[in-house]
């Protein structure tokens, strides 16, 4: 995280330093400041989206403070004030300060530069507080990221097709304010308004009965009798299906499937040879048929972390527990393959490669994920929002991605290049089939691994609960 922060700071710093000379070179006839102002709109939108996904609402456990002699207004002001100290607000300064310095050096009027910098800082704060409003409004739903994506694409679309040129409007507004600094009262007023909106909504949430109110939804139960076909794994399969359908975190990963399914459309219609080589078929094949497998499998057994002690002391054989996970993952691969059949439109080879990728996923990647799962030590918060939620992610999740994707890609690419497409495809299929044939042996091996990690997992999950 620190490296990422440093990296971003460096990028913004070089942006701030290089912007003026860069723009002078690109548009020698226009004033770089005016050009920058015309681009501010895109920055604002980008900043808002970026924050939506990565900046968290300022969290504070206020319940213990409520009974202490502290004014509620003070608590709220403190929480909101603290949020202005976020790294996201300081990041743009790395660009704004050097750029302003260069402007001053280039003999711009001091008042113009100061006004310009103040406008940007106010804008950053507006975005900061606007993000909280958007986030708290949309935090309840699974598809929480859709509204902001739709709104910003509509805005960008209107701008792009010149129906309403927001970039021009933003540019003109900033120009007008720098020309007449007293107009800065307008953005300040907006900031005050947004701040007070936040203040109001927080204050509403700050009474005890609001905080203690438990949202209750009537349960929609289905008895899932059809799972009985899977014998002793059936109760766990039912449990997993309910787990997926009844918790925020898992439910939105179901929506990720839809997005993943469309992933091939980025590559296959692309006529450029870099993206349409056979090499990409296997990448997309593994990805599409395995997207649920990877999303779900990487957190085995952390999904059950909240009640892991129950599972470990109940009358349960580890093998059946893991087998039900396997059945679920394998079934998802088959379903995803069937759904990806329309890609045959782009060529029969694609369908063939998707098919062998499915076999590989079922026969190899399922085991790799379950094995890696025995190293999971982080509990999962099931009721937190899901998309772009990295809670519970550790080094295991990043490391396991390498063998999952890279190994089949390398094997395929190498054989396809050295021998032939047929041999490459067949090899991937055979690897998968070997895995399926050796199912019992492999599962037993994984069970052993889980057994030896049992106590460590229990105590780790217990601590993070």
């Amino acid at each position, binding site marked *: 995280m620190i490296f990422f922060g440093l990296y971003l700071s460096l990028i913004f710093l070089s942006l701030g330093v290089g912007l003026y000379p860069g723009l002078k070179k690109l548009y020698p006839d226009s004033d770089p400041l005016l050009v920058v102002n015309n681009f501010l709109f895109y920055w604002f939108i980008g900043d808002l989206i970026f924050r939506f996904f990565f900046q968290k609402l300022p969290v504070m456990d206020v319940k213990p403070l409520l009974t202490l002699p502290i004014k509620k207004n003070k608590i709220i002001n403190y929480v909101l004030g603290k949020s202005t100290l976020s790294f996201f607000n300081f990041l743009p300064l790395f660009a704004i300060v050097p750029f302003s310095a260069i402007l001053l050096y280039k003999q711009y009027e001091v008042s113009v530069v100061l006004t310009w910098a103040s406008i940007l800082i106010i804008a950053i704060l507006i975005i900061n507080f606007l993000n909280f409003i958007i986030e708290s409004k949309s935090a309840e739903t699974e598809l929480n990221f859709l509204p902001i994506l739709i709104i910003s694409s509509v805005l960008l679309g209107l701008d792009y097709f010149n129906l309403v040129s927001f970039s021009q409007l933003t540019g003109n507004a900033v120009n007008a304010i720098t020309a007449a600094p007293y107009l800065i009262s307008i953005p300040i007023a907006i900031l005050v308004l947004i701040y007070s909106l936040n203040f109001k909504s927080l204050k509403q949430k700050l009474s005890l009965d609001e905080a203690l109110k*438990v949202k*209750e*939804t*009537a*349960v929609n*139960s289905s008895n899932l009798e059809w799972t009985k076909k899977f014998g002793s794994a*059936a*109760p766990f399969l*039912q*449990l997993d299906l*309910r*787990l997926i359908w*009844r*918790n925020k975190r898992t439910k939105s990963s179901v929506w990720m499937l839809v997005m993943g399914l469309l992933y091939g459309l980025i590559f296959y219609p692309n006529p450029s040879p870099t993206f349409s080589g056979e090499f990409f078929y296997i990448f997309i094949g593994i990805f599409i048929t395995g997207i649920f497998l990877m999303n779900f499998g990487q957190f085995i057994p952390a999904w059950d972390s*909240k*009640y*892991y*002690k*129950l599972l*470990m*002391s*109940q*009358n*349960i*054989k580890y093998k059946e527990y893991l087998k039900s996970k396997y059945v679920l993952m394998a079934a998802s691969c088959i379903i995803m393959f069937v759904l990806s059949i329309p890609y045959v439109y782009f060529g029969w080879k694609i369908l063939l490669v998707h098919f062998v990728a499915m076999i590989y996923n079922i026969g190899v990647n399922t085991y790799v994920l379950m094995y890696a799962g025995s190293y999971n030590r982080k509990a999962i918060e*099931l009721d937190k929002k899901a998309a772009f939620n990295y809670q519970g992610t550790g080094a295991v999740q990043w490391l396991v991605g390498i063998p999952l994707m890279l190994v089949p890609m390398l094997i395929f690419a190498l054989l396809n290049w050295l021998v032939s497409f047929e041999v490459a495809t067949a090899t991937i299929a055979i690897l998968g089939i070997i895995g399926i044939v050796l199912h019992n042996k492999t599962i037993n091996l994984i069970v052993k691994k889980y057994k030896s990690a049992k*106590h460590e997992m*229990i*105590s780790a999950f*217990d601590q993070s*609960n």
Partner: protein
Amino acid sequence: MIQASQISKTYGKTTVLNIESLEIPKGQSFGLVGNNGAGKTTFFNLLLDLINPTSGQITNNKVQVNKSEDWKPFTAAFIDESFLIGYLTPEEYFYFIGELRGMNKADIDSFLKQFEEIFNDEIIGKKKYLRDLSKGNQKKAGIVAALIGNPEVIILDEPFANLDPTTQIRLKQLLKTLTENNSATVLISSHDLGHVTEVCERIVVLDKGEVVNDIKTSEETLKELEAYFSA
């Protein structure tokens, strides 16, 4: 039924449990009392193989618990809310435990009939998730689930905490009949001296991980315990 010998658990330099020898015969109702940090839950966790002992061993019906899983079919426990599955309804949870213990839906339905009084119409058929139930109702569901499938060893940590007075009385009745009827061995821990003396025929007092008293319950037991804890 249960035999602990030389069992100890140490975290770093603190020893949280150190029991020379403890034997609980079949069909006994066994109570564990002690202040916070006395080692009650640690003992239960060791018995359920949820933590590894630093030394010694526990056998449950001659099965050494950290060597074999064969004690699981006849042992059931409710230690804390991590024994509940929050996103299930109570019925679904009971059915799930039932499956694990070889009882089908109909078996469970008739099994649940006897708890109608305890459930007090707040648990069954409410279409609520366990995570949305009150603490007391969660506890009721957890305790009842631990009784599914007639286990021979039942372990309940603080079963009376969070329960309303009526349920406390009913639960005491229930626990007494358990050891009478099918000679189940019942292990409970409690901070409430009155409840344990009423339910248990034997009470062991733990202090800082060691057994300081082992009492066969009689008329004077409550007074004796109160004297010990107020000293």
